[in-house]
């Protein structure tokens, strides 16, 4: 249901603080959508290691690369996007290179506040509006953006508003307003907030919901709670674990697994599960959008099988 709702938009923006697993969830979301026959583009912004590695593929660059039939990925580096834009504007390669080679251009781009973000969002808009073939149809059915996690993650989305206020006239203001109206249009864009079942992450996710609504006029459509500890024991078993863990019984359950160590592991799990439950409730009570829980995966590394597990859970939510 949540997935149906999200997939009705062409653009899904995943936001959340660093380390909550946005790129894993974004890739799982892409696989789930691909299962429904959509043509998908997954966009990362200046990612040091791109999500293509989860699928066992080489890092992707600034050009869209089809990593699976129907699933393309791209890593937008702001300076490269700007270069590309300049090339389009100048149209003469030699001159474009000359401009790009000048230190003034480089340093201006690095120091002009908000310009990198604006360039990236502009590129996202171009991709969202791109048409192909005859009859013309959208090049991508779905674009998923792993938004950069700077500060509250708000900085990125705030740029178009700031730019349209600061520079009302001229191409910057014009494009900023177009980007803003794309982001605000619930028929085109869905914002999903990713969090972990932890104090900071939940508080920030809720603050983020409030700020995007109040400051930017963008409503979050879903929360995704990643890394949940799910119930592994019955209520009676949990009671038994908590009772026996404080005793000092001899014995083992398997080679290398003593009873007391396993009971201690059991108690650790129970505490984590309760924390998960506590934070999920808190999120559900305060969130104005559905909350989807995804399990913590006890794998050494994220691979396609792990992603398919998460995709299945998204499909079922």
């Amino acid at each position: 249901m949540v997935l149906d709702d999200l997939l009705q938009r062409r653009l899904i923006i995943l936001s959340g603080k660093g380390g909550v697993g946005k790129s894993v969830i974004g890739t799982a979301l892409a696989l789930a959508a691909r299962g429904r026959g959509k043509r998908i583009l997954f966009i990362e912004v200046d990612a040091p290691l791109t999500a293509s590695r989860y699928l066992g593929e080489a890092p992707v660059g600034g050009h869209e690369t089809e990593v699976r039939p129907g699933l393309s990925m791209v890593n937008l580096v702001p300076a490269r996007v700007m270069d590309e834009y300049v090339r389009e504007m100048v149209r003469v390669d030699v001159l474009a290179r000359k401009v790009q080679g000048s230190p003034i251009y480089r340093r201006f781009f690095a120091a002009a506040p908000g310009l990198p973000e604006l360039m990236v969002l502009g590129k996202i808009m171009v991709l969202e509006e791109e048409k192909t073939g005859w009859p013309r149809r959208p090049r991508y059915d779905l674009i998923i953006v792993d938004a950069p996690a700077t500060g509250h993650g708000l900085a990125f989305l705030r740029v178009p508003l700031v730019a349209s206020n600061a520079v009302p006239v001229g191409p910057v203001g014009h494009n900023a307003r177009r980007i803003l109206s794309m982001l605000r249009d619930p028929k085109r864009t869905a914002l999903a907030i990713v969090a972990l079942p932890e104090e900071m992450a939940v508080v920030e996710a809720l603050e983020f919901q409030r700020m995007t609504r109040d400051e930017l006029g963008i409503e979050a459509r879903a929360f995704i709670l990643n890394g949940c500890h799910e119930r592994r024991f019955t209520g009676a078993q949990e009671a038994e674990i908590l009772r026996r863990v404080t005793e000092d019984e001899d014995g083992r359950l398997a080679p290398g697994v003593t009873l007391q160590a396993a009971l201690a592991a059991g108690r650790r799990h129970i505490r984590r599960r309760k924390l998960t439950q506590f934070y999920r409730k808190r999120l559900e009570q305060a969130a104005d959008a559905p909350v989807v829980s995804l399990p913590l995966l006890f794998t050494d590394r994220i691979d396609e099988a792990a992603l398919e597990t998460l995709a299945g859970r998204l499909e079922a939510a």
Partner: protein
Amino acid sequence: VSQLSVQALSRALDERRVLVVCGSGGVGKTTAAAALGVQAALRGRRVLACTIDPSRRLATSLGLDRLPDKPRALDLDRVAPDRDPRGALWAMTLDTKRTFDALVEKHASSDAARRRILENRFYKQVSSALAGSHEYMAMEKLLELSADERFDLVILDTPPTRHALDFLEAPERLMGFLDTGILKWFLKPYFVAGRLTLKVATRTGALALKLADNVLGLQFLQDLSEFFLAFEGMYAGFKERAGRVRALLRSDDAGFILVASPAPLTLDEALYFHQRLDESGMPFVAFVVNRVHPDPAQGFPATRAAADIDDDLAEALVEVFQDQRRLARADRRSVERLEGVTGRSAILIPEFEADVHDLRELKETGDVLFGVGGERRGRARGRSARRLAAADGAKR
């Protein structure tokens, strides 16, 4: 070996004047910075812990939510009555906009210049909202605080950037920007007349201007030009202070503590960061790896006796145990990689079963770091972690 790292960290808390806590977002930097602040104060130093983005409960319990941007003295008597009495702890949260405003207030060349800046549309947006200003202001604040005679140690939490290096490079970036012709270019009246007066010396220059007009628009350039003009007279000061921060961060008075989690991505960042510190001659102190999953077998002597337990429960328990062991092993491999690449041992903090919210928990986190109360660090860590968990259980 890890004992050496603990000693290095310990010496740094005793001797340095500035400690910068770095790492990528979500690794527990803020908590680590605050916990180290408590430890230094217990050793008799007068410490200011400057945090950037504390959790609300931590901010509330330290009273930071009521006093943004002002150091607030914390009462250590309750958590450490028998500490070195000379020690004291202040905490504050850095507020980018206020720091920027204060800077303008202090350094603007005249009242008119001050008003021109503070009322500039561009300034209003830039000073609070946009990326980059955090780093510049953290830098300015660090300089101001390190000269404040109330404190003999400043511990600085760094802004939550995607690339932790942004902070490190802020002084260079600012100096680089002020050094290029770009500023002069903006300070010339190309834009002010309301149209581009194209008396630019070179063809490329003329082209760049034309392009800038097409891409960015004249209005944008004019606003930017006005913004830069308003700051005229302050640039020498900016540059001079950026140079001083740069020198301070390379001196023996400073030290960098790199915080990572065992997640490969944050560890890679820590490795890269370490390399950059090395290259630029900045003093590295120690790696702290936070939220390490403990090995569930650790501390339990092996046995061969059969256990008296229901089969279903035994099976579920073994599964949970193995899952936790897998995470612990993955974490250990991560830490070994870090240590192998750098030749430095890491100080490990186990994953606690609850978040750290108040001064007492901050102190206990630091105790875990230093293995207080036991000769064997691992043991002491385990005990403290359990104590923390127990304390948390009692509260709920």
